[in-house]
């Protein structure tokens, strides 16, 4: 974080100016949002800083917050959004919950009713019974500034919280009268994130010993691995351990690497492994669905002491960051002379077999291949929850860290398109696509107007099966085909996107998709591609989870 303008002398400024200034002091360059009367002083302060701070306004508050999320996903930097209190804030909370589930630093800034009326129940515009309590039902850090002078320290605390440990969103609120009030304000320098704890040497040594002794070691990684890709590669190559990447970790090893595993062959590898190193993942899905409790020796690295015991305690637990923990393990393994072991054969076979199975699943394989060929290796993929992406999240080859994105464990429909827009704002140098179902896409479709207005070149790919297909499949497989409330009547997506003023095309075959996508990406303009799809092979049968246990999907 850079501090461009931190000074030590208090200056007289409004609450709104204090907020805008604090954002700049924390290196923020973009705010997504929708203005409104309670935030007029804040947006006016943004106006003053318009050469340093870009404001991207959207067509629904969810869009602003999802864009902030996508911005954080693509860049690792804080995604910031500003929305009016009451319904504006409520409209953004789905994205906040989604960001929390994906461990992202996102800062929401919202207003309040006038400070002197809070809690009176007069029925002031946008009044909630207890707005802070509502936000705190979603995330830990939700605070209100009671005076302009409090703003710098409070926001510095928010940034520190967001970037310490498991990264998390924060929401800051301030009443409109205070955003407008002038007072002497002492700017605050950014606070460094709390450093990762240093794991106990004896524990590290024991973990290294167990790993070195393992015949069939496995490494499971989740979203916590981002930015520690080099460290995991080093340990994996020493041990010859496959790295099983959860969808949130896709790309941390390029799929061309023989040790790069998705969860699909990962499940087979789990069935055969003797020792597992589990890093930066909640481990919930694996532990609950893959079994072998007590049969696999487990070593876990997680920055969050609350998370590391869930869903069950590992044999050895190192509470620290992926980078620090893997670095320490790597050093210990080097010392023990563990060097460049080869992958164990059962794992290698499982990977090859799974790839062959996946390659047979048409039209999914054809569409995935088309997408992969049309999109540059460093292109960014935002995968909504749709039948196609349930496949692609395992089967599409990824080449770079931070290039494949999912909506965390919330699996929130509609996240992908606005998140992709936010990502493109953060990384204008990359090509960006959003993959959505007809159901999911419609949740946030109004942001087509945002893409056009701000000229954000993202291509939305809509897989149209005229249904909430995921739910429909479960109704077919587990409820005897008693279909209810799952069939949809859609717009003509191409005509709709054109009504928004963007290029749009239909692609009915993988070949057409490849050609159309390549041409859309070359255009570098907001655009949409509709792909009509019918029945798809059931990927869940390969994911091997009971589809409706209600625990995981």
């Amino acid at each position: 974080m850079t501090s461009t303008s931190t000074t030590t002398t208090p200056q007289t400024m409004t609450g709104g100016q204090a907020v805008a200034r604090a954002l700049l002091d924390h290196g923020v360059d973009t705010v997504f949002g929708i203005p409104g009367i309670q935030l007029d002083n804040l947006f006016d302060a943004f106006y003053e800083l318009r050469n340093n701070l870009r404001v991207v306004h959207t067509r629904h508050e969810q869009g602003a917050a999802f864009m902030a999320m996508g911005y954080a996903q693509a860049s690792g930097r804080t995604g910031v959004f500003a929305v009016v209190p009451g319904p504006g804030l409520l409209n953004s909370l789905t994205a906040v919950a989604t960001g929390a589930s994906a461990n992202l630093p996102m800062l929401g800034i919202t207003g309040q009713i006038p400070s002197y009326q809070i809690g009176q129940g007069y029925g002031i515009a946008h009044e909630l019974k207890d707005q802070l309590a509502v936000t705190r039902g979603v995330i830990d850090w939700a605070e209100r500034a009671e005076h302009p002078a409090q703003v710098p320290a409070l926001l510095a605390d928010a940034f520190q919280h967001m970037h310490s440990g498991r990264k998390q969103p924060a929401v800051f609120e301030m009443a409109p009268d205070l955003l407008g009030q002038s007072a002497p304000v002492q700017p605050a320098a950014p606070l460094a994130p709390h450093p990762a704890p240093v794991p106990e040497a004896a524990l590290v040594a024991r973990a290294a010993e167990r790993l070195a002794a393992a015949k069939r070691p496995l490494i499971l990684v989740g979203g916590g691995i981002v930015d520690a890709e080099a460290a995991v590669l080093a340990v994996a190559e020493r041990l010859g351990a496959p790295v099983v990447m959860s969808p949130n970790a896709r790309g941390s090893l390029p799929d061309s690497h023989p040790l790069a595993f998705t969860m699909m062959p990962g499940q087979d590898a789990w069935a055969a492994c003797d020792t597992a190193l589990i890093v930066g993942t909640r481990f919930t899905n694996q532990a609950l669905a893959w079994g072998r409790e007590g049969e696999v020796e487990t070593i876990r690295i997680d920055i969050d002491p609350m998370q590391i015991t869930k869903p069950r305690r590992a044999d050895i637990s190192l509470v620290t960051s992926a980078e620090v923990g893997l670095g320490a393990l790597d050093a210990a393994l080097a010392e023990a002379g563990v060097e460049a072991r080869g992958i164990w054969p059962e794992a290698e076979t499982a990977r090859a077999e799974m790839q062959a199975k996946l390659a047979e699943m048409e039209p999914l394989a054809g569409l995935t291949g088309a997408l992969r060929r049309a999109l540059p290796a460093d292109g960014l993929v935002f995968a909504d929850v749709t039948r196609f992406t349930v496949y692609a999240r395992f089967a599409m080859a990824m080449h770079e860290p931070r290039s494949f994105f999912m909506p965390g464990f919330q699996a929130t429909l509609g996240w992908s398109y606005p998140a992709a827009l936010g990502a493109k704002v953060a990384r204008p140098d990359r090509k960006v696509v959003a993959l959505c179902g007809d159901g999911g896409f419609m949740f946030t479709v109004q942001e087509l107007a945002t893409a056009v207005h701000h000229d954000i070149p993202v291509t939305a790919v809509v897989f149209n099966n005229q249904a909430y297909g995921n739910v429909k499949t479960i109704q077919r497989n587990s409820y005897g085909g008693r279909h209810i409330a799952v069939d949809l009547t859609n717009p003509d997506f191409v005509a709709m996107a054109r009504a928004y003023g963007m290029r749009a095309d239909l692609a009915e075959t993988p070949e057409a998709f490849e050609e159309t996508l390549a041409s859309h990406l070359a255009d570098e303009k907001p655009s949409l591609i509709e792909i009509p799809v019918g029945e798809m092979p059931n990927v869940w049968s390969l994911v091997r989870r009971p589809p409706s246990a209600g625990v995981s999907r």
Partner: protein
Amino acid sequence: MSTTVADLVVQALRQNGIETLYCLPGVQNDDFFDALYDHRDSLRPVQVRHEQAAGYMALGAALATGRPQAFCVVPGPGFLNATAALATAYAVGAPVLALVGEIPLPAIGKGLGLLHEIPDQLAILRGLTKQAERISGPGDAADVLRRAFGALHSGRPRPVGIEVPASVWKAPVAEPPESLAAAAIPAPAPDPADIERAAGLLAAAERPLIVVGGGARDHGAAITQLARQLTAPVVAFRNGQGVVPRDDPLSVGAPVGRELWRTADVVLALGTRLAMQQTQWGTDDDLRIVHIDIDAAELGRVTAPEVGIEADLAVALPALLTALGDHARDRPDWAGETARAEARLAQSYAERLAPQLGWLEAIRAELPADGIFVDELTQVGYVSRFAWSCTRPRTYLSTGYQGTLGWGFATALGAAHARPEVPVVSISGDGGALYTITELATAVRHSIALTAIVFTDNAFGNVRRFQIENYANRPIASDLTSPDFVRLAESFGARGMRAKTPDELRACLRESIRDPAPTVIEVPVGDFPSPWDFILMGKVRGA
């Protein structure tokens, strides 16, 4: 097959008069939808395209019918998507049941990161409703359901929440109850002495004024009679519109009400917070207040009334009329003052707000008296709050104090679904319209006819106005690039029309009302004169 918790919920909904479930399905509620499957003809699911619309449709249906309505969503993001609708239902006093899924019971609060898990969903649900509970098994299901419907049928109408964990739906119920129909819990009877005092004050008043809010919606006849007997003008702001028909000389809009508030000596507040009047228009010791509300918390919210009566208006108003007996006074001076204020302000609107009035008059001319008008935060909408000639209760739907941009289209859709026999027209700006216009797909799928008028100025016009007028001409983040709404509507298979003048708007409306179908009318507009002098009007009493 044994009865399950899911069956009980279906039964409770049906036995309490719910006929439609506005919904969006998902894995945590699969067992419930399967139980619903066998009853889908009497409890019809209407699946929507975003959970906000499930909430807004239930809200629109509740406001249009006055009866409880229900929606059902998955937990986490599904629930959060519907929270703005819940907050709006709370603000406007609508009996809406939120039936919300939840992660499996044993996992709640464990922080495992299960699909759609949020740290404290029930706390949020409680924060947005008047009552919310979780069904934790067959043991408490019937009681929770009865309490929920009891609350929906009783007291101040407001949303109620029920949360059902995924693991609970299929639990067998050992002894299924015969009936889950819940009766209303009667409000306390008004103290006869209070009624006498109220009647005495009103009878002795020289310049009595009646203020009605959303709580008075279903009591128009008694209030009209009271107004006539007392020669008391009746002022409605948003939710009280139509309680006394606006073509009655005693029914006035807020700006006229404020003129009268200046010299009124006794105010009778019915089913209203009375907060806007007291905080904006001011109070002083000469203003004597009789406040009747079913919610004791509203009595004396701002200042203590001289007579505060916690009661159901259905009981209190007849009691008050009885106490007044054959008292009837003409109060010709006061009636004259009312008429003069009305004429003066009508003149002033005509001079200063002609463009907005032109559009409103065009809509009024085509929309029959029982047609429903759904307001939103847009330039024409602000003026409608005081200039719309509303002649029936529940035909002017407003976001009340919540000021929820984007509610309009989906709320109108719910109203139209619940009252297919009357035309429904919503108005919004191009900013507000895009929040929920995706539900055109729902309108087409479920054949719900309504007309959405979209005033397109390619701006968050109101925000832009304030930025220009109050912030030294520094507009930011308020210019928009909107879609072509005609083509947009057509892409959904809906009817798209464009009207450039009030006459053209009349012609479009005539067609969409004669031949009902999902319809969008785009009205391109430029800057409007500011309506705010007639809304934020400042004190007329007290220093």
